């Protein structure tokens, strides 16, 4: 595409009288809104509420004495991210970092340098964040330079296992037990809780959804009917009613002490809910796999299970990927409903902060931060999925690894 010149801009914006009117009108509207926002942001808004509650919004009422565990977890995640980043991107370009990587590194550095002082984090925490940034970039560089070439392929195969192990380790660090002081789920909160419950739900809902989709296409009538009934019932009910049901009904059904923590009940409901939608997305993918693939696989002697796992599902999931990512994003946003049943997800903890008389009326500041955080999380998901889609579709054009 050619660079838009001043002339082409003029042609597009002021080509005719209606265009000119429209351009000027919209320009005025945007300027007015921007002026209003800036006036509010630098004049009336009181950002102290964010500074004072930064920790609460991030981790909720997690005991301060145990906070080191979360830092440790963050360090672990950062290390793995750095290594994965290097492994994924290092192979493509032997010399130097690709432009996108340099942009990402620059943005991250900028954020780490600017945001903590703005929010008046303690000096120690600022140092920790800087250390984590350094760790991330260092590992990215090292992995891209050394690991990717010598060990890249062997590591890439077992890498998901490494992440799975880290996830379990993370759950242990957050929840405690087995030698660590237990921290009850009701004390988890804020951004950490939102990300934790979203990821946990997704990890459980994906396999469950795939099973439901397969059940729906099964040749066994009972299995098929049960799957269809489940999917249609769940898809026909609003999530919030299911959440209330999960909170209240289970309490009636099970004797008091046996009912699991409210957080786990909510996670179970979210999982069951997401699974029904995942199943429909996967069903779309399954339908897109031509019958000939099945016949070719069976004619080679592969069993039904092998055909499914080696031939059908890899193709179906690739087709279903955009819809699945849509589900992930929807699920992340659906976790805000947890605040309505009284859990302290990001929205819930924000509401509890706003209920504090000290911060009376500071709605706009807090909700703006929430909007930015949710937007960042969702954008990260869709960016990641787009990259994954590109990788998968170009894998049909690139030499395979041996």
């Amino acid at each position, binding site marked *: 595409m050619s660079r838009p010149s001043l002339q082409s801009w003029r042609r597009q914006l002021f080509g005719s009288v209606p265009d000119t009117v429209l351009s000027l009108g919209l320009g005025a509207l945007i300027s007015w809104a921007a002026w209003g926002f800036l006036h509010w942001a630098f004049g009336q808004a009181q950002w102290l509420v964010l500074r004072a509650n930064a920790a609460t919004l991030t981790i909720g009422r997690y005991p301060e004495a145990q906070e080191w565990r979360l830092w440790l977890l963050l360090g672990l995640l950062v290390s793995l991210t750095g290594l994965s980043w290097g492994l994924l991107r290092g192979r493509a370009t032997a010399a130097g970092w690709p432009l996108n990587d340099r942009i990402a590194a620059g943005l991250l550095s900028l954020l780490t340098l600017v945001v903590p002082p703005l929010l008046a984090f303690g000096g120690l925490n600022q140092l920790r964040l800087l250390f984590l940034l350094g760790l991330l970039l260092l590992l990215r560089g090292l992995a891209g330079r050394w690991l990717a070439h010598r060990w890249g392929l062997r590591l890439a195969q077992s890498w998901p296992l490494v992440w799975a192990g880290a996830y379990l380790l993370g759950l242990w660090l957050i929840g405690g037990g087995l030698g660590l002081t237990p921290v009850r789920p009701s004390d988890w909160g804020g951004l950490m809780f939102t990300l934790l419950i979203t990821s946990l739900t997704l990890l459980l809902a994906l396999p469950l959804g795939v099973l439901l989709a397969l059940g729906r296409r099964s040749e066994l009538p009972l299995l098929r009917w049960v799957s269809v009934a489940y999917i249609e019932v769940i898809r026909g009910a609003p999530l919030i009613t299911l959440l209330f049901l999960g909170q209240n009904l289970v309490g009636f059904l099970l004797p008091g002490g046996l009912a699991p923590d409210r957080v786990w009940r909510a996670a179970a409901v979210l999982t069951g809910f997401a699974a029904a939608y995942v199943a429909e997305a996967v069903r779309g993918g399954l339908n897109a796999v031509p019958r000939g693939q099945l016949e*070719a696989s069976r004619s080679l002697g592969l069993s039904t299970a092998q055909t499914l796992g080696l031939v059908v599902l890899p193709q179906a999931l690739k087709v279903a990927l955009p819809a699945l990512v849509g589900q992930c994003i929807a699920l992340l946003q659906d976790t805000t409903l947890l605040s309505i049943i009284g859990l302290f997800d990001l929205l819930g903890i924000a509401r509890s902060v706003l209920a504090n008389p000290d911060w009376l009326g500071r709605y706009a500041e807090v909700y703006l931060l929430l909007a930015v955080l949710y937007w960042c999380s969702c954008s990260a998901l869709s960016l990641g999925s787009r990259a994954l889609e590109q990788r998968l579709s170009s894998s*049909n054009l690139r030499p395979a690894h041996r």
Partner: protein
Amino acid sequence: MTSSQLMIEARGVNKWYPNGFQALRGADLEVRRGEKVVIMGPSGSGKSTFLRTFNALEDFQGGSVVVDGIALNNDLRNIDAIRREVGMVFQQFNLFPHLSVLDNLLLAPVWVRKRPRAEVRQQALALLERVGIGPQADKFPGQLSGGQQQRVAIARALCMEPRIMLFDEPTSALDPEKVREVLDVMRQLAFDGMTMVVVTHEVGFAREVADRVVLMDEGEVVEVAPPQQFFNDPQHERTRRFLAQIL
């Protein structure tokens, strides 16, 4: 002829589709070890359906099919055992688009025969070389022409070391100039002694390679004869009519 020499023995095979249409009406066929049989017939004559009963891709309601001494029935173990020994090549190639050419060949030997990957890899590369796809082993099926894809499909079937090869209109989906490269591979395979059953409209291939040519019409085997007799002196009116249309 003793029965042990029979690779395929189909007797009185009947098949009805769920909508009541009878696709096969007592079709009979015997294929001896090393024999090349070409099945011809107008579209809708049941020739593909008949072929697909030989590796249980189609079920049937009456009659019997015995492949390499194993009777095809509802016993799943028998079906899997037969499919391992019977290679199949489809009209639409049906390569696995998410796997590289080489991985297409490796999949079944590694997962079904449980053979070590490195060992199969040598064999697969040799096979690809033989069908003229050697340099493309690392490409994906979508990057190959139709003729190349079909040759890969043949190599994929051969990599299982089958005792019989079935071809279901292997050149019908190809551009005319690509037909020859696939037929050359099949000719070579026939020359090497493979037992082959081929559904095709390629008269030249049938004349040159087939030991016997079969005419199917309306789900029945109408005529079975050596190519010389089949094309020059057919015994049945329906064969004459069919040949008049295609020759």
